[in-house]
């Protein structure tokens, strides 16, 4: 009978009228990010970093711009750790390259910006600010 398929289809959609919702009310309700989630800014740990620059070498798109200084004891210090989000493709190669696990993703996915300048930030400054707030 012509139209039988249409009615069967309608039955399926009606069946979902009373059922569990598949969506969440986004700004009020947020889904938790997984353990391996790649995204957001880089959370930098100044104490762990040895200034080897392996992260910047591993980056396919040169998204990391690092300045390293050497003190009188020949110890390397990070002066700035600039991450350009616009160039980053979140491939995780920098984090995997780090021998001391000094960088991780901060898993904040709400970092859309109106201006290009806001897509560049210094992870070192952010880490210091975060520590200042904690203390």
């Amino acid at each position, binding site marked *: 009978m012509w139209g039988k*398929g*249409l009615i069967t*289809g309608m039955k399926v*959609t009606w069946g979902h009228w009373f059922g569990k919702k598949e969506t969440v009310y986004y700004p009020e309700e947020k889904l938790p990010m997984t353990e391996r*989630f790649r*995204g957001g800014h880089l959370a930098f740990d100044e104490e762990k970093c040895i200034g080897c620059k392996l992260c910047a070498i591993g980056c396919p798109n040169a998204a990391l711009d690092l300045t390293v200084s050497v003190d009188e004891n020949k110890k390397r210090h990070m002066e700035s750790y600039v991450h350009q989000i616009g160039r980053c493709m979140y491939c*995780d*190669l920098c984090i995997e390259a780090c021998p001391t696990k000094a960088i991780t993703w901060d898993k904040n996915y709400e970092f859309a910006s109106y201006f290009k300048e806001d897509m560049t930030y210094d992870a070192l400054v952010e880490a210091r600010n975060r520590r200042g707030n904690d203390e």
Partner: protein
Amino acid sequence: MAQTEKYVLNMGPQHPSTHGVLQVQVELDGENIVGAKPVMGYLHRGIEKLMESRTYVQCVPFTDRLDYVSAMNNNLGFCMAVEKLAGIEVPERAEYIRVICAELNRIASHHVFIGSLTNDLGSATGMIYAFRDREKILDLFNIICGARMTAHYIRIGGVAADAQDEFLRDTQKFIDYVPEMLDEYNKLFSGNEIFQARMKKTSIITKEMALKFGMSGPNIRASGVDYDIRKIDKYGAYGKFDFEVPLGKRGDNWDRYMIRMKEIAESAKIIQQALDNMPEGPYMAKVPKVLRPPKGDAYHRVENTRGELGFYIVSDGSTKPYRVHIRRPSFVNLQALDTMCKGMLLADAVTAFATIDPLMGEVDC
């Protein structure tokens, strides 16, 4: 007497049903299509050239951006080509995880096909159902590699990280859901009379034509040609699994749709076998930190969701590839568009385009 003449209508590159930035110059005689000429290049990023200035390991995330709805299959193709070149042996567990991920991604990609096809045929509801189920797979990818679409999970020598119990458990849950899901789709669209009327006996590609165009993937199998690289080459762990290759008869839009529905069931069968026989062991081979494959070249092809995806890599013995060429299935399949559209009505051009299922990221590369 009224005078008529042919005219050219530009469909795209911003047309909502061209699935990306493809322009089709449709030559019309009234409402009948005389010719359809695809104009490409709007999404060209020069990935082949970019790869020449990256190391082999750095090239892998670029392959995600080729066919961005089945990134795992692209990773697999490139990594296997480099492994062939450098002679790297992949651990068995990694092979199994690769198969699970590649097949999950095939299902997710077919979801996009079903969703966009039904949307193009005027049923926006259908799209929501397909994308709801695709979301389940993307969540699985989020668990295993931390990204939903641009996975970058399959690496040279294995996979990036071991599959957790959570991932395996949730994959099993999804596989158990697949028959129910297909049943719902069949009730929603396959049995729908309007859907059938639009799909059956339209845009026919015969066996000879399909072979002549060099088509591959579900499109050629819909025309009745038994050509599945998973069966022919048995690359990776595919030789160990028992699955069938669904074939079509007429090569019309309906066959191309049904092939994909059947392939979802077959993929689920492969994943189930891989989950049951998952071996223990390392997930990554011993790959040197600085990879320098010997001088020479290698070609490796895999069965991507859309057909035969091949990577040809020439090495000059340095850390970077000398030349990479990618054989993209969508690009080749798209050549059939003109033949498929000829003699059809304008509304059928949208259906023909949707059933070839090209992805512009891959066509333009």
